[in-house]
């Protein structure tokens, strides 16, 4: 019995250490200076906990003892396969594809929590009703998180193109949810020994089927613009599911790590929804809907095109430039060219700053990551609240591939779908250039008065191509002067 006692003590201690390292790591991740070390601290906690988990081998149930050799082999195999494939994918995925990658990994975690619950349920291992109810709760949250995250991944990866909306969708979801809960109650009843038309394993299969279906149905109607919020919700959900299964397995490390993520994910969800001017309930239950026809005649003036080179030279002789990058920049992979252009401006003595809207990109903070990838130092990057009152004193605002987040209608036009959303006050700058693919509308499908303003000029074209021309123009200037 001594080995099993030692195993328990080591597993308990490493779990405790892991919980501390997770919390300390997340704390360090909350500042750019220490963030890179924060993830390593958390990673160390994970490594210690996973290695120690193999000591469970000294403390297995009597029934499992004959299978121990096979089980250990399976465990090593699953770790190697799952770990290496995910590691390779995480190392090679493009930075622009990061949101769907996070959704995918999150779904895996939800699936793992659901699988743990399934073993507990099929084996009827729960001691008492409370433990059984907690197992079921973790199972349904994990399963919903799995299928929902996979749908979110498919949508962001453009495998699923359009939000799928049909009539009575909410009613159908409600019916599925109620049926799922009813089956959960039946499982509790069956586990207590009452005879039912369906056996316990059959009920468990139906239960998981309904939970997975609910995750799919609940995510299908949600539009691409709301996906970051949805991923964040599922991230919190997986955390809660892991925490609940941690309780079932009597493992405090899982309970703490899971619930910390559950709370952190919830807070992050609220912050994102707020930045997008959406409530969490409207994301989940009200589709964004096609924008109401906005009278084109309401726009006065016209869009004035300008050549990329002329705009570049104007900026070269400006005192201050604020750059507002949007998803269009990421799509054309123009971040590196943008930073090359910025370096030319800096060399010419122009003051350059980046202004990032909270939802620039497809996920809050994604634009910061993309700029960081291109080498832009983070002290040149400013968030909306810190820079918004400085547009008025800035010579040029350069908008690249952003639209709705610079639409002044959000401040002025109560009938606009974006009304009330915090926007970057580009229209207050002395001069604005907007780099845009064509004369189309933004994600919300509405007109943008900024484009028609007298001091705004439009540079049409792919962001990367436009920036190449801008770099050439400024370089040409340099050689002509020399």
């Amino acid at each position, binding site marked *: 019995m001594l080995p099993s006692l030692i195993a328990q003590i080591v597993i308990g201690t490493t779990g405790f250490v892991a919980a501390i390292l997770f919390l300390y790591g*997340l704390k360090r*991740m909350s500042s750019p200076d220490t963030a*890179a070390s924060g993830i390593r601290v958390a990673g160390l906690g994970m490594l210690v906990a996973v290695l120690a988990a193999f000591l469970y*081998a000294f403390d297995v149930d009597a029934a499992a003892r004959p299978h121990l050799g096979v089980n250990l082999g399976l465990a090593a195999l699953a770790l190697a396969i*799952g770990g290496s494939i995910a590691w390779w994918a995480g190392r090679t995925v493009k930075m622009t594809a990061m949101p769907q990658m996070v959704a995918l*990994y999150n779904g895996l975690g939800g699936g793992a929590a659901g699988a743990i619950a399934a073993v507990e349920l099929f084996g009827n291992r729960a001691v008492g009703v409370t433990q059984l109810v907690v197992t079921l709760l973790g199972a349904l949250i994990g399963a919903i998180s799995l299928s929902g995250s996979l749908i979110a991944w498919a949508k962001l990866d453009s495998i699923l193109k359009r939000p799928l909306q049909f009539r009575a969708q909410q009613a159908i979801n409600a019916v599925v949810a109620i049926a799922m809960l009813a089956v959960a109650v039946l499982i509790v009843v069956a586990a207590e020994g009452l005879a039912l038309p369906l056996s316990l394993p059959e009920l468990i299969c139906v239960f998981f089927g309904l939970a997975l279906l609910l995750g799919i149905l609940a995510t299908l109607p949600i539009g691409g613009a709301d996906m970051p919020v949805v991923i964040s919700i599922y991230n919190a959900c997986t955390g809660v599911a892991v925490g609940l299964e941690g309780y079932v397995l*009597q493992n405090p490390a899982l309970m703490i790590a899971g619930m910390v993520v559950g709370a952190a994910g919830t807070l992050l969800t609220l912050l994102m929804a707020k930045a997008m001017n959406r409530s969490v309930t409207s994301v989940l239950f009200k589709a964004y809907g096609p924008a109401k026809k906005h009278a084109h005649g309401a726009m006065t003036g016209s869009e004035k095109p300008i050549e990329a080179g002329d705009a570049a030279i104007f900026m070269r002789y400006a005192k201050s430039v604020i750059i507002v990058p949007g998803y269009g920049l990421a799509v054309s992979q123009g971040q590196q060219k943008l930073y090359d252009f910025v370096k030319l401006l800096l060399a010419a003595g122009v003051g350059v700053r980046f202004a990032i809207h909270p939802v620039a990109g497809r996920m809050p903070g994604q634009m910061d990551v993309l700029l960081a990838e291109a080498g832009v130092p983070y002290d040149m990057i400013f968030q909306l609240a810190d820079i918004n009152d400085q547009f008025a004193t800035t010579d040029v605002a350069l908008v690249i591939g952003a639209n709705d987040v610079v639409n002044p209608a959000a401040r002025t036009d109560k009938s606009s779908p974006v009304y009330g959303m915090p926007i970057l006050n580009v229209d207050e700058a002395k001069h604005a250039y907007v780099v845009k693919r064509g004369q189309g509308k933004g994600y919300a499908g509405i007109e943008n008065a900024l484009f028609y303003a007298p001091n705004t000029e439009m540079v049409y074209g792919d962001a990367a191509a436009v920036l190449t021309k801008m770099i050439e123009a400024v370089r040409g200037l340099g050689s002509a002067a020399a």
Partner: protein
Amino acid sequence: MTTQLTVNDFTGLYIFMLAAFAGWVVIGNVPAILHTPLMSGSNFVHGIVVVGGLFVLLNASTGLEQAIGFAAVLLGAGNAAGGYAVTVRMLAMFKPSDAKPHRKRHVRAGHHRAKKA
């Protein structure tokens, strides 16, 4: 099993309450610039579920339990390894102005600078 720590219903509730509070406070001060890495980092942390998967798999006594336990470890390992890989990649990109400029655009596996204590 007698020496095993038991978490009864109420201690469970206390652990959940305190952990949730800690998570809320720790993340509360994160600047928007780190939101995506943070989402990814917290995603990595719930990869600890792989430990639960290992427990279940090692205690499996039927073919069904072995199969589901295998899936749990497989998925949990994917969550942990993938979450770590993408978070490290993202955070390695954040550099202040005074830092030496980096030529590399893509950090590749195995290139961990030997700065670990």
